[in-house]
C-alpha cells in the first residue's frame, strides 16, 4: 500500500482495504485461531475443558487509556491483562478472548501493530487465544486514537465459588504487591502535570498466580482485581456486598516511594489509584500464609502481604488503623481524583 501507513476510513468499510488490514495486522499477530474471525463468530470446542458442574465465566471491558503507550505497558497489554484478570478473580481459567478495535482515521498503522503485538505477546504468556475480533474505523476526531474492547471466556471448575459477598469476620485481606502504580504511571505519562518519576504500571496477567492460589487454597472467599477505583473501591464494594467491617493496617499498605510522592504532591490517595496487576484476596486468617507463599512464587507476588482483616459482621465499614492507634474511615470518592492545592 503506497503512502498508506495511516489508517483511513477505507480500512473500516468492509471492502478490500479492510481485508488487507485484518490479514496484515491481526491475523498475522494473533495467529491461526484468529482466522476464524473471518467468519461471523469463532466456534470453540469447550468439551475438552469442561467437566460436569463446570460453568462459563464471561467478562468484558473497554480500554480507553491515554496515552496508548506508558511505562510498563500499553493499551494492548492492558486489554489482555484486564480481561484475563477479571476471569481469574472469578475463579475461572481463561479460555479465549475476543478483541474489538475502534480506530481513528489517521492512526499510524505502525502504532496499531505495536499494540497488536503487545496483545499477542501478553495473550501468549497468559496462555489464552484471541479467537475473534472486529475492526471499526471512525473519522478523525471521533475517537481518541484506539479503543479496544476485549471480552473473555473462562471455565469455572466445579465447586469453585469466589464472590464479593462471602467475606467473613476473621478473614485476612491480602494483596500481591504495591498499590497504585498503574494510576500513578498513567497520570505521569499524560505529561500535563509536569511531574516525572520512575513509576511503571503494574500491568500483568495474574491468571497463573491466581490459578495456583485456588489450587493450593480452595478456601479463598473473595478475589477482586483492584482496577479503576483502586483497592479502596474494591474493598468498599466487598464490605457492602458482604456486610462486614474491614480494617486495614496503615503500616502494612505497600506503596512505592514514588507513588506516595505523587500523592503527597497532588493531595491524592493511592488507595483509589487504579492497578492492573493487583489482586485483593480475602481468605480465612489460618490460610493467609499459604496464599502469600503461593503469591511469592510468582513474579507479580514478590511484595505480597496482608494489609488488613475483616473484623466484624453486620455493618459495612472500611477503615484504617493508623500508626497512632486511631481509626480513619475510608469513603469512596465521588468521581475522578483531581490534583488539589488545598
Amino acid at each position: 500500500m503506497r503512502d498508506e501507513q495511516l489508517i483511513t476510513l477505507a480500512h473500516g468499510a468492509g471492502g478490500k482495504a479492510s481485508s488487507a488490514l485484518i490479514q496484515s495486522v491481526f491475523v498475522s499477530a494473533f495467529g491461526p485461531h484468529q482466522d476464524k474471525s473471518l467468519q461471523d463468530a469463532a466456534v470453540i470446542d469447550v468439551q475438552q475443558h469442561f467437566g460436569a458442574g463446570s460453568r462459563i465465566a464471561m467478562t468484558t471491558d473497554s480500554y480507553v487509556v491515554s496515552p496508548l503507550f506508558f511505562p510498563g505497558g500499553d493499551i494492548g497489554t492492558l486489554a489482555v491483562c484486564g480481561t484475563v484478570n477479571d476471569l481469574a478473580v472469578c475463579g475461572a481459567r481463561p479460555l479465549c478472548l475476543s478483541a474489538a478495535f475502534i480506530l481513528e482515521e489517521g492512526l499510524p498503522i505502525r502504532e496499531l501493530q505495536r499494540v497488536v503485538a503487545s496483545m499477542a505477546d501478553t495473550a501468549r504468556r497468559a496462555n489464552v487465544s484471541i479467537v475473534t475480533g472486529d475492526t471499526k474505523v471512525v473519522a478523525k476526531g471521533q475517537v481518541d486514537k484506539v479503543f479496544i474492547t476485549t471480552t473473555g471466556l473462562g471455565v469455572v471448575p466445579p465447586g469453585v465459588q469466589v464472590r464479593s459477598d462471602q467475606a467473613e469476620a476473621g478473614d485476612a485481606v491480602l494483596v500481591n504487591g504495591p498499590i497504585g502504580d498503574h494510576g500513578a504511571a498513567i497520570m505521569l505519562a499524560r505529561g500535563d502535570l509536569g511531574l516525572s518519576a520512575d513509576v511503571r504500571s503494574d500491568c500483568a496477567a495474574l491468571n497463573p498466580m491466581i490459578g495456583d492460589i485456588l489450587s493450593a487454597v480452595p478456601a479463598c472467599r473473595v478475589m477482586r482485581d483492584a482496577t479503576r477505583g483502586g483497592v479502596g473501591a474494591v474493598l468498599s464494594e466487598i464490605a457492602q456486598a458482604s456486610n462486614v467491617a474491614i480494617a486495614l493496617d496503615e503500616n502494612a499498605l505497600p506503596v512505592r516511594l514514588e507513588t506516595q510522592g505523587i500523592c503527597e504532591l497532588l493531595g491524592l490517595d493511592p488507595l483509589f489509584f487504579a492497578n492492573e496487576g493487583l489482586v485483593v484476596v480475602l481468605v480465612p486468617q489460618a490460610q493467609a500464609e499459604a496464599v502469600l507463599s503461593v503469591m511469592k512464587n510468582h513474579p507479580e507476588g514478590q511484595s505480597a502481604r496482608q494489609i488488613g482483616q475483616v473484623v466484624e459482621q453486620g455493618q459495612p465499614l472500611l477503615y484504617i488503623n493508623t500508626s497512632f492507634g486511631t481509626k480513619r474511615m475510608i469513603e469512596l470518592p465521588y468521581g475522578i481524583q483531581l490534583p488539589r492545592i488545598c
Partner: protein
Amino acid sequence: MFNRQAFRAPPAVKTLVDKIVPLARRVAEARQRPVQVMEVCGGHTHAIFHSGIDQLIGPDVEWVHGPGCPVCVLPAQAVDEAIALAQQPGAILATFGDVLRVPGRHGTLAQASAQGANVQVVYSPMDALTLAQQQPDKRVVFFAIGFDTTMPGIAFTIQAARQQGLTNIQFLCYHIRLIPTLIRLLEQDSVCIDGFIGPGHVSIVLGADAYQPIARRFGRPLVISGFEPVDLLNALLMLLQQLDEGRCEIENAYARVVNNAGNLAAKAAMAAVFDSTVCHWRGVGEVPESVNGLTPDYRAFDARSSLPRLHQGTDQEPAYCAEVLTGNRKPHQCPHFGHACQPETPMGPLMVSSEGACAAYHKYNVGKCKEPCHEG
C-alpha cells in the same frame, strides 16, 4: 538531610499526647466545658482526621474547623464567571483541580466541561503560561483562587506573562486573605473559640508577626503549626499551655519554614500586581482586602475585561453553615449533613471542597463513629 517521617513517628506522637491529655483536662475543667480550638486551615482539619488526633486527645478539646479553604468560600458568582469565560469560543480555562466541582448558580466547571467547554487542570499557574505559549491561537484564562500562600505564585505568573509579552492569557482572580478573614470572624458576637492553631503555609508568606491583632485586639492566643501529626500536637500543646497559664501570644511551632517577617519577595509581587477590594465570600460574608482585580500596570491581564455582564447576587446558603464556622455547631449536627448536603451535592461552603469541615466529617465518617457530641 531533612526527614519528614520523623514528624510522623508514633513514639513522638505518644509522648505529646501523654503531655496534652492531662493538660487539656485541666484547662477544660477550669472552664467547665471543652476547650474550643479552631484550626483555621482546612489542611489542618484533614491532617487531624487523617491521623485521628481528635480521637487521641478526646473530648476535652473540641475542634472548631475554620474557614481556611479557598475553595469552600469561593462565591457562586466566581464560578459563574469562570464558566462564562470557559464557554467563549477558542478559550481554555485553566485552574486547580479543587475548583472543578464547586457549584455556581448554573452548575460546576466540571459540568461546563462536559458540555464542551475546554477546562484544563494544572498543577501550577506557570503551567497555564506554557499552555498559552504552546497554543497561540487559543485564549487561556487562568482561574486563580487561594489565600496568601497561593497569591504570590499567581502574582509572579502574571508578571512573567507580561515580561514574556504574552497576549493570549488572562487571569480571573478570586483571592481571599487570611488576616482580614479571621478578624471578620472574631468580630461576630457568637464566636466561641478559645484559641487558634495558625495555618502553616500562609504564615510563610505573612510571617508570625502578622497575627498580632488576633492576640492584642481579640485576646485569642495563636500557635502557628505545620501539617505533620507531631507539628499539630506540638502546637496544640503550646496553645493549651498558654491557656493554662493565662497567656495570650502569637507563637510559632513551625519555625523551620515560618519566620516573623514573612516572605518579602512574595509580598512585593502581590503588592505590584493585585488590587485590594471588598468581596463577599461564601459562609464568611464581606471581607476587606480581598483581591479580584489587578493594578493598572497589569490590567491587560485581568480576565474581567473579557467577561460578559453576569447577574450579580449573593449566594444563598443554609444558616447552619455560619453556626458551624463560628464553633456553635458541629457539621454532623446540621440537619442537612449527609442528607441533602453531600460532597456530590453540596448545599453550603463547608461541604464543597474536601478541605471543608463538613466534607471532612463526611469523608472520615465522623458522624457514624457515634462519638458523644459536645455542644459548644
